[in-house]
């Protein structure tokens, strides 16, 4: 397969040497455009859609659930409808399940088969989420993974690892940290890290210093 940095069909390709898989994906993209299956505009719209999603959406949902028990109940019963209340469009998700952490139970999410992730809510997954290392160890050494993220749990806390192998996407509702009664809802949202919604760590115990 030949490849030039700026080729005849009018868009720039990266100038460094591409991997086999990168070359393949560009070739497939070019063919799809050439054959009229999708347009350059479709691709751009999809990139913009993906970039507009971020863990801030999830943090907003979690903070509201912490301050409003009725909202939390609705969030667990019908997550899509609860997201819509906050102006977050989760309809692109097939099915969406919220896993509530408690003092006695922690949830952790992985996709051992590929990289299934609640993208319409949280945006793109971190690279480590897609790594073979995480995908293997999350299921057979979840406590080891959590320890590396700074979370050490006593043995009587139940760890439940969810392997999202099919149509369901999961998000963890982390525990509200103790001593945060005085914080406002937007401040609480700042405690909710992306990784706490994947479940490898708890929410931050206090506001990060800027």
């Amino acid at each position: 397969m030949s490849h030039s940095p700026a080729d005849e069909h009018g868009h720039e390709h990266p100038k460094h040497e591409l991997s086999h898989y990168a070359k393949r994906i560009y070739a497939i993209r070019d063919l799809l455009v050439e054959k009229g299956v999708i347009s350059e505009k479709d691709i751009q719209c999809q990139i913009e859609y993906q970039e507009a999603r971020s863990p801030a959406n999830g943090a907003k949902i979690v903070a509201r659930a912490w301050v409003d028990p009725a909202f939390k109940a609705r969030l667990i019963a019908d997550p899509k409808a609860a997201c819509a209340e906050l102006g977050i469009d989760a309809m692109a998700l097939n099915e969406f399940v919220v896993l509530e952490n408690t003092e006695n139970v922690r949830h952790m999410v992985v996709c051992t088969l590929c990289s299934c992730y609640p993208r319409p809510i949280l945006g793109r997954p971190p690279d480590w989420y897609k790594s073979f290392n995480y995908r293997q160890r999350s299921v057979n050494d979840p406590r080891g993974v959590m320890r590396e993220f700074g979370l050490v749990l006593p043995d009587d806390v139940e760890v439940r690892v969810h392997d999202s192998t099919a149509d369901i996407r999961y998000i963890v509702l982390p525990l509200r940290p103790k001593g945060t009664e005085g914080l406002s809802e937007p401040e609480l949202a700042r405690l909710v890290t992306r990784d706490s919604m994947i479940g490898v760590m708890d929410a931050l115990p206090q506001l990060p210093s800027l």
Partner: protein
Amino acid sequence: MNFATGTFKPGDKVRVRDEDRPGHIRTPYYIRGKTGWVERVYGDFRNPESLAFGGDGLPKRTLYLVAFNQADVWGSVQARRDKVLVDIYDHWLEPVT
């Protein structure tokens, strides 16, 4: 969630079929042949083994949340109550009596 036509209900003890065949299989290897129980019935979904190859995914298959004790999956255990939970379609499960 969707309407469910499958054979199992929450609490049923199930074993994951220990089969190997080519195709777009959404049942991970590490869980095949293992015994757990149905935690939740998610409803009927189009079959990804057909969808992946341009098929219509019909008939739909019931999808379950199936729980396994970590010890039953790996033979050793970090903490007694720890579990791994996998989403598995009806045709990959068999009843355990």
